């Protein structure tokens, strides 16, 4: 970007004036004037036209000229304009921002309108308006670089002040566009944190706990299975013992007849019980199939009768579907041709004729229901007969079982009364019967234990299945955790790679800037002093004492020189990068002007001279606004010979003519 002209209309104290900027070999434009003549306003004119921002310190941010407002009549509009022409990449541009101030109807206040920005490119036939002017200007001179190239010189010395590392670091990052990389690192940091949290959530101890629970349940199952086996062994032993006793009783003369009768009775008892079980199964089959009919038959028949009655009374029977009526009503015309306006009696009549349910569906439903009711009646009759037969049979079996029970009880009693042993030292039938009875009670208890154990085992196996399902779910989540872990690590690695690159590039720029600063500073400042940008991004000024360097107490002169040298180094880096024409990764560089207000601050004469010497070196094009008091003497002596353009701000406070303040810009060379 190379500045050409700046034109101001009704912008603060400038009513209608312009400046042409020097370029080329004599690249400095010097503008001087008394305090309050408008130097800061000129700097603000740049920030307003380029970024629509102004900063007049404590003064009002009103842009419109005070005199023009005073002269305006109520409802008059006063236009405020700033126009900047410049060259960029071999093309000439004209940017103009304007805003209108309107004096209110009572003439007491003014209202600012919306500002508009236009950007035109010069072509052979004239000027061509550019789309998205704001975006285009930011491409030409990015917002982030504006504080480096348009600044108040009195603030710039802060760069070389105490604890200034952050500012230096940011300036270096800005010139290379490295801020984007730093934001990426910060973003990746947050992404990595999120993935880490996700990983920790899913890879919690949950799965471990599930496995522990599963192992516990398996151990429990093993334990219960062992107990079950033991009980079954015990059952077999008891059964064997019962059988042994039965065999003995069948062999003993005294008891063998009774015992045989008892065993026969027991066999018949088993058979009857089996018959009862089978009969219950048959009953259940009948019930599950048709028991509902016992209670549903009346409602089925009643409903079938209702539907039949509807049909016989022609309440349902029609071939006309509801859709047919819908079509007629939509068409608003009856099949007889009568108009069916809504609302009308004819419309309502046709609507009343429309059946609520589709006739075909209802007919089918009715037929099926009537058939179902008829079948149900038959089925229920069959059920009734079968149930009666089964219950009669069941009664017979139950009676048989009761008889067998009585017989068994009688035989057992008789056996228990045979208390004489066959041989001395042998057990009597009574003793054996008592022992068998005891064993049978034991068998019953063992069977109950087995039943309980089997039931408990079933429950534990159910629990195990549940835990296994949970393990499966947890493993799926674990897979998610592994994905999260991989993403987390990828984010960390990417972040590390970008950070590494970022630090390398930052250090590269720092070294380049350091070389420039050293060179520029040493050419101007005292010979025993050196300026450098340290590894920690500190702009230091040191004094050479023999082989040792010590940091000096910075005077404002040295810090101003070092700070300007640093700015100059950034401009140079940007220009070099631009001229290298290499494919830049982050920043393609550029040629930028430096526009600075009051770069001499409160420097003494010697330092003003040194700063004045450095100014032409700072960039391809430099515009400097200074007060008359700073201008006179060393600055004027150094700059007049090299300034390509020189202006004076002639300020009239209007006091003498009872007028409003106004500044005119007068070209001197």
């Amino acid at each position, binding site marked *: 970007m190379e500045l050409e002209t700046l034109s101001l209309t009704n912008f603060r104290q400038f009513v209608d004036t312009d400046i042409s900027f020097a370029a080329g070999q004599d690249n400095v434009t010097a503008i001087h004037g008394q305090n309050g003549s408008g130097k800061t306003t000129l700097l603000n004119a740049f920030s307003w036209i380029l970024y629509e921002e102004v900063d007049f310190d404590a003064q009002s941010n009103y842009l419109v000229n005070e005199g023009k407002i005073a002269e305006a009549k109520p409802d008059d509009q006063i236009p405020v304009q700033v126009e900047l022409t410049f060259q960029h990449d071999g093309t000439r541009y004209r940017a103009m921002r304007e805003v209108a101030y309107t004096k209110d109807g009572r003439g007491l206040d003014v209202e600012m309108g919306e500002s508009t920005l236009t950007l035109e490119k010069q072509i052979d036939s004239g000027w061509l308006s550019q789309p998205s002017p704001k975006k285009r200007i930011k491409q030409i001179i990015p917002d982030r670089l504006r504080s480096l190239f348009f600044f108040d010189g009195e603030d710039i010395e802060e760069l070389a002040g105490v604890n200034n590392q952050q500012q230096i670091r940011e300036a270096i990052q800005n010139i290379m566009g490295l801020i984007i990389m730093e934001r990426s690192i910060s973003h990746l940091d947050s992404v990595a944190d999120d993935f880490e949290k996700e990983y920790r959530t899913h890879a919690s101890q949950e799965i471990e706990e599930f496995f522990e629970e599963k192992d516990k349940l398996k151990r429990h199952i093993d334990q219960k299975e062992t107990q079950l086996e033991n009980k079954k062994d015990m059952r077999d032993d008891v059964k064997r013992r019962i059988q042994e006793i039965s065999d003995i009783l069948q062999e003993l003369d005294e008891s063998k007849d009774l015992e045989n009768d008892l065993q026969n009775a027991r066999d018949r008892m088993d058979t009857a019980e089996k018959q009862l079980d089978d009969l*219950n*199964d048959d*009953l*259940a089959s*009948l*019930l*599950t199939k048709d*028991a*509902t*009919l*016992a*209670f*549903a*038959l*009346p*409602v*089925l028949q*009643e*409903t*079938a009768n*209702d539907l039949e009655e509807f049909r016989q009374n022609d309440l349902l029977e029609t071939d006309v579907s509801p859709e047919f009526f819908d079509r007629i009503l939509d068409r608003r015309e009856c099949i007889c041709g009568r108009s069916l306006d809504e609302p009308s009696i004819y419309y309502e009549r046709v609507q009343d004729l429309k059946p*609520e*349910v*589709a006739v075909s*569906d*209802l007919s089918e*439903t009715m037929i*099926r*229901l009537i058939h*179902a*009711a008829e079948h*149900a009646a038959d089925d*229920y*009759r069959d*059920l*009734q*007969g079968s*149930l*009666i037969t*089964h*219950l*009669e049979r*069941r*009664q017979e079996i139950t009676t048989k079982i009761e008889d067998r029970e009585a017989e068994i009880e009688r035989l057992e009693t008789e056996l228990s009364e045979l208390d004489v042993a066959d041989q001395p030292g042998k057990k009597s039938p009574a003793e054996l019967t008592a022992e068998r009875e005891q064993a049978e009670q034991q068998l019953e208890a063992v069977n109950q234990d087995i039943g309980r154990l089997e039931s408990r085992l079933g429950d534990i196996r159910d629990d195990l299945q549940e835990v296994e399902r949970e393990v499966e779910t947890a493993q799926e989540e674990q897979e998610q955790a592994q994905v999260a872990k991989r993403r987390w690590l990828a984010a960390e690695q990417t972040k590390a790679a970008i950070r590494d690159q970022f630090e390398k590039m930052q250090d590269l720029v720092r070294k380049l800037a350091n070389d420039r600063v050293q060179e520029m500073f040493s050419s101007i400042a005292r010979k025993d002093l050196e300026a450098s940008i340290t590894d920690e991004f500190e702009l230091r000024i040191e004094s050479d004492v023999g082989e040792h360097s010590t940091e000096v107490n910075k005077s404002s002169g040295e810090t101003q020189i070092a700070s300007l040298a640093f700015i100059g180094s950034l401009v140079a880096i940007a220009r070099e990068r631009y001229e290298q024409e290499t494919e830049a990764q982050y920043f393609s560089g550029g040629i930028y002007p430096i526009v600075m207000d009051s770069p001499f601050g409160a420097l003494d004469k010697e330092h003003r001279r040194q700063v004045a010497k450095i100014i032409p070196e700072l960039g391809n094009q430099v515009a400097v606004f200074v007060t008359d008091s700073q201008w006179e003497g060393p600055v004027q002596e150094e700059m007049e010979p090299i300034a390509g353009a020189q202006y004076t701000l002639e300020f009239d406070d209007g006091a003498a003519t009872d007028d409003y303040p106004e500044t005119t810009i007068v070209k001197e060379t």
Partner: protein
Amino acid sequence: MANTRDRIRYDCNDVYDLLTDKYSVFNSYVDCFMFFAAVGYANDLKCEEYGDDHKFLLKYITQSDRFAQVAKAIAYQDTNNLDILDDPGEQLYILGQYAAGGAKLASNEFSEHSGDPTAAVARFVLRHGPDPDDEVESDLQDIL
């Protein structure tokens, strides 16, 4: 309109377990549900609020022609609205209420303490069903 993937909620109290899982009087909870619904309707026992944490697919009812017809008939008699014949979802909502009422009655009739309830259910059916033909009347009296 109900979808066959819709689920019916019902009050599955202990008597379902007793008559289905434990003694297999009914093959399934669906058979048991329909029995209770019919019992509930016949005895005018309708529970509008009941535990409904159990459910089964609507299709188990609609795919049985008999159950589907019973559902239509009970719902129609309950509402006196022909439209309900074409709305299985609404029919089964009404059935659920009668099934809850029927299950309560069954809980009082059939108890685990009395052992296998199969015969008791058969007698219950015969006792409360429609009057039998004359020829089986006397046999029935003997049985009951």
